[in-house]
């Protein structure tokens, strides 16, 4: 008997061991549930969660093209490769450990590393007693799409000099363990939930987490070669503004699912309010960044306008369901101003972040979270501050440890020759634009 046959024959045995039973045709409760008055609502709610999962999924293409556009063409293949790896390892690890670690049920509030998702029989769970918002699977895939985002944020900041193998180790552990543990503190019913902390769709849990993980990784990594020379800053220009723009529009589109899906049902008033606050914050963030760029940098910098949209989106993410449309615009405006100043300041202190991820996600993530405490009387400013700083600090420390782990194992940074040649050729042996290589990139 070949090895393949042994494996194929072993699968049913394994499934029996983990308690899987195929759905049986007779005696299923679906018919009863279908006839009940709540069934139509359940179908709509679940459909909305699944559409939202698909919208969040497309954000990963947005991140990929944004990062590609804001970096040099010689590192394009490497950026695409990293983004493919992150979404893939993100979904797989979320199934193996992430989902149950993030939503462990009853736990100590800080840490509970759990095993794979259950082989839940979907049909058996369809009853009026089940959560009216969505099925187990709809919930899983929606949250899984979120999970990879934290590592994707880091990917942009470390672009153009991070070593592929080291980054893969770093990203896999970050997305499999660090993000779900941090997420459990609030969304899993942990200690921050207990304190009354509010973070609707993840200004802190996803964005500040990713941004401060990026900060630690960049500190370990150092700036790109040739970025800070003789005490001065030498900008390294992104190679495709159209790609960066496609990325930001895709991210805005995806955010309708990121925030809209976080309502966790298709409740008409909330979903539509969230669409409005989300878009207003993005639009005003863009305008504010345009004006700030013109006033302070004496130039209408398109990359700043793009970052302004993302800043507004990150800023409103903590509170898209509870803000008035006017407050959403104020939050977006402040985020759009902060992001431009933060990008310039971070560059001046020689922290090299090619895409502005630390400012967009880290700084504006904190702003969005404390804005809840400022604009809403239902939530305490100090609790919001404690919560967001906890996420920032935890992400920073974990990222620091993971970056050092990568450094001593595979290495976290490529050599100077590889960096100058470009990671596409030195790491992958594959140019991104085979017939269009130009001299200086």
């Amino acid at each position, binding site marked *: 008997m070949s090895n393949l046959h042994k494996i194929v024959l072993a699968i049913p045995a394994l499934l029996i061991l983990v308690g899987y039973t195929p759905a049986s045709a007779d005696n299923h409760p679906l018919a009863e549930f279908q006839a009940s008055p709540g069934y139509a609502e359940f179908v709509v709610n679940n459909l909305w969660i699944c559409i939202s999962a698909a919208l969040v999924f497309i954000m990963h293409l947005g991140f990929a093209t944004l990062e590609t556009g804001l970096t040099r063409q010689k590192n394009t293949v490497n950026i695409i490769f990293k983004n493919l790896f992150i979404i893939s390892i993100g979904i797989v690890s979320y199934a193996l450990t992430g989902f149950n670690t993030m939503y462990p049920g009853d736990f100590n509030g800080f840490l509970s590393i759990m095993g794979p998702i259950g082989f839940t029989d979907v049909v058996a769970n369809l009853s009026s007693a089940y959560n009216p918002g969505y099925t187990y699977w709809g919930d899983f895939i929606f949250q899984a799409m979120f999970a990879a985002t934290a590592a994707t944020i880091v990917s942009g900041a470390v672009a153009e000099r991070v070593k592929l193998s080291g980054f893969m180790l770093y990203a896999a552990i970050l997305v499999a363990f660090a993000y779900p543990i941090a997420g459990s503190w609030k969304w899993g019913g942990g200690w921050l939930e207990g304190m009354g902390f509010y973070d609707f769709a993840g200004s802190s849990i996803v964005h500040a987490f990713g941004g401060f993980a990026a900060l630690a990784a960049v500190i370990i990594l150092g700036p790109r070669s040739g970025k800070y020379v003789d005490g001065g800053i030498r*900008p390294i*220009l992104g190679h495709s503004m159209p790609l960066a723009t496609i990325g930001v529009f895709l991210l805005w589109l995806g955010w309708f699912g990121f925030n809209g899906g976080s309502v966790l049902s298709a409740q008409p008033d909330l979903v539509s309010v969230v669409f409005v606050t989300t878009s207003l914050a993005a639009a005003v963030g863009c305008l504010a960044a345009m004006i700030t760029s013109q006033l302070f940098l004496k*130039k209408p*910098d398109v990359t700043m306008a793009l970052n302004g949209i993302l800043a507004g989106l990150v800023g409103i993410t903590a509170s898209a369901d509870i803000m008035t449309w006017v407050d959403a615009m104020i939050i977006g405006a402040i985020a759009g101003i902060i992001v431009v100043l933060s*990008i310039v300041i971070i*560059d001046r202190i020689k922290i090299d972040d090619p895409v502005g991820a630390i400012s967009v996600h880290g700084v504006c993530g904190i702003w969005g979270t404390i804005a809840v405490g400022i604009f809403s009387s239902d939530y305490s400013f100090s609790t919001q501050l404690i919560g967001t700083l906890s996420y920032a600090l935890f992400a920073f420390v974990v990222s620091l440890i993971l970056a050092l782990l990568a450094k001593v194992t595979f290495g976290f940074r490529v050599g100077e020759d590889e960096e100058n040649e470009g990671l596409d050729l030195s790491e992958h042996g594959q140019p991104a634009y085979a017939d269009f290589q130009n001299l200086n990139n």
Partner: protein
Amino acid sequence: MFKIEAYLRPSALEGVQKALGEIGIVGMSVTEIRGFGRQRGHREVYRGAEYRIDFVPKIKVEVVVKDDDKDGAINAIVEASKSGKVGDGKVFSSPIQDAVRIRTGETGESAL
């Protein structure tokens, strides 16, 4: 025979081609180049940090003309590409010893 080499703004190409055509110059070569002159490039800002563009995109137009056409051709190029602003470019001319038309074997000015 003279070779005229003109270093020009890319936007000047169409006008120069037309002007040379009008005085009966047939044939020209264009190369996309980058370079700087007395002004030594210019400064730009990207995401809040200044940088220099040392090598500015330019074109180089090359034509080889008969002795009698030299002054007219230089004039035509200068007139067609003059904006009066820094960066208009420069025109050089140098004598050419010989020329051969590959297809027929003609040499000298009749090869032009």
